[in-house]
C-alpha cells in the first residue's frame, strides 16, 4: 500500500524546484508555492511563460557577450553610444549596475567571470581572446577595466591590462575610494590608504 502523502505530488514537485534556486530554502519555497496556489491561473501562466522565454529567446550578443534578444544587442547597435570606449566587466549584471549610474555612454565587454586557477578558471574559460580580437579590429581609444576590487578582480584586470597595453590604447581601472556619505573615521585602514593614493587635485 502506498504511504499516504501529507502534500499533493505536484505541490511537492514545485517546492522541490523552487528550493533549487539560489538563496531559497525549503521553507521559502513552500511559501512561494502556496502563494501561487492562491493566485489566478493567468498569473501562474505568465510566470511560467516568462521563465521559458528567458531560456528560449535570450542569447549572448556576439560582440559584447551580454544577454540580448537580438544580435547585436541594443547597447552594441545604439549609434549614439561612444564606440571609442569599451568597459570590461565580469558579468552581464555588472552592466546594469553601471548603466544605472547614467555616467557612462560607451560600449561594454562581458568576460563571463573572473580568472581563478584554483577553481579551474583560466583566461581560456573566459572571453579574453574575444576581447583582444575585438580591440584589435575596432581600435578604441580607451579600455576601462571594471572588475571587482577583490583578489580575483584585481588579478583579472592586471592580466587583461597586460594583454591590451601593447595595442597602444589607454587602459584604465576604476578608482578606489571612500563611499559617498560615509565617514572617514569609519573607513577601514586599507580603503583609506587606497583613497589617499588615488587622491586628486581640487
Amino acid at each position, binding site marked *: 500500500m502506498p504511504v499516504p502523502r501529507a502534500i499533493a505530488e505536484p505541490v511537492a514537485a514545485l517546492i522541490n524546484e523552487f528550493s533549487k534556486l539560489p538563496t531559497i530554502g525549503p521553507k521559502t519555497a513552500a511559501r512561494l508555492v502556496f502563494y501561487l496556489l492562491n493566485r489566478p491561473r493567468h498569473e501562474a501562466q505568465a510566470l511560467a511563460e516568462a521563465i521559458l522565454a528567458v531560456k528560449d529567446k535570450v542569447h549572448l550578443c556576439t560582440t559584447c557577450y551580454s544577454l540580448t534578444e537580438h544580435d547585436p544587442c541594443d547597447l552594441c547597435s545604439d549609434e549614439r553610444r561612444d564606440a571609442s570606449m569599451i568597459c570590461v566587466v565580469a558579468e552581464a549584471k555588472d552592466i546594469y549596475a553601471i548603466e544605472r549610474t547614467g555616467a557612462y555612454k560607451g560600449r561594454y565587454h562581458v568576460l563571463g567571470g573572473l580568472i581563478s*586557477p584554483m577553481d579551474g578558471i*583560466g583566461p581560456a574559460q573566459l572571453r579574453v581572446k574575444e576581447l583582444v580580437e575585438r580591440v584589435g579590429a575596432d581600435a578604441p581609444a580607451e579600455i576601462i577595466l571594471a572588475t571587482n576590487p577583490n*583578489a580575483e578582480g584585481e588579478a583579472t584586470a*592586471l592580466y587583461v591590462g*597586460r594583454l591590451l597595453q601593447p595595442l597602444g590604447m589607454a587602459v584604465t581601472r576604476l578608482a578606489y575610494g571612500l563611499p559617498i556619505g560615509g565617514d572617514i573615521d569609519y573607513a577601514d585602514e586599507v580603503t583609506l590608504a587606497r583613497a589617499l593614493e588615488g587622491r586628486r587635485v581640487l
Partner: protein
Amino acid sequence: MRLPHIELTNFRNYRELELEPAAGLNVFLGANAQGKSNLLEAIAMLGTGKSFRTSRESEVIREGASRAVVTGEAHSRMGIVRLGCMVESGPRSAHKRYLVNGKDVRYARFLGRAAVVTFVPADLQMIGGAPSLRRAFLNAALSQEQPPYYHELVRYQRALTQKNAMLRSETADRELLEVYEQTLIEAGTALWLARDEAVQALALHAEQAHRRWSAGTEHLELRYHPNVPAQAPTHDAVVEAFTTHLRAHRDAERVRRTALVGPHRDDLRFLLGGTSLAAYGSQGQQRTAVLALKVAEYHVMRKRTGEAPILLLDDVLSELDAARAAAFLEGIGDVDQGFVTATELDSRFPAARKFEIDAGRLRVQA
C-alpha cells in the same frame, strides 16, 4: 586594556556564564578537565577571533547547540567597545561572525580591538619545531598590531594559492603567472619589511629579559631569516631581490610544481652565544628563550598600541620550574589584566581575583 565583563553562551562546556574579572591577575583554579582552558580560549577569541587550540572551530559549540557565543566589554584608552565572536555550525564547516558594538563586521575590522598575548604549553616547542610555527607566531602578533599587515598577508596567501594551482596544472600561461608574481612581490615585500622591523624590536626586548635571567652569562639573539635575502631592509632592495630570486628559481618551481620563493618560507632563528638553539640548545635553554620571546611580544605590543595587552597563560607556569616561572612573571612586570589557569593555588601568583572552576561552574573565591 581590560575586559571587566565577559559572557559565554554554549561555548564548550559552558551553557551560560557571566564573568566579572578584576584588574590585575585573575586565576582560574580547578582540577583537570573542568573547563579552565575553555575559558581562556573564549577570552582569547575576543582578541584574535580564532581558537588557539583547534582549527576545527565547530568544536567550541556546546553539544546539542547550534552556535557558541563569546561577548565582552573591552575598556581601553580609546574608550569602551563591545565585542562579540560567534561560531555557528554549518553544513560543511563552521561559520564565524564578528560583532563590534552589536554590528556585524568583517574579521579585519574586529581583529586587534582587544590586544591579547597568549602563552600556551605548545609555544614551548616553537624553537625546536617546524618553521611554520615561528611564522605563525609572527603572523599572529603582527596581524593584531597592524591591520595593514593582515591585509597584505591575506593578499599574499591568496595569490600564492593561485600560483600553486597554476604550477600544479601545468597550464603555464607565463603572462598570468607574472600577474600573480607581481602581487606576491608587492604583498611579500610589505610582509618582509614588517617582519624585519618586528623581529628587531622583539630581539631587543628578548635579549634584555634573557640577560637578566642568565646574569649576563649567555647572549640571546633573534634573527629574521627571510627566504629572499635583500641587500638592505628597504622597499626597493626587497623588490629587486624578490624579482631576481623568482627568476632564478623559475625552472625549479616548474619541476617541483610549487612556489619555492617568498615569505611563506621565512624563518625566525634563535641563537645563544652565537650558536643555533634549534640545533644545539638543550630543552631548558629553548624554553627559556621562548619565555624571553613572549616577554618581548608583550612589551613590543604594549609599546606599539600604547597600552598593555591582556595576558593569557594556559597551564604554562605549571610546566615551568619555579625559577623560570618567577623570572617570566618578573619580566612581564605589572599587568593591566591577565588570566592564568592552574590546578592549585600557587603563592607565586599575585592573584587579584580567584575563580574556582568545577564542571563548568564558576565560584569567586573569597
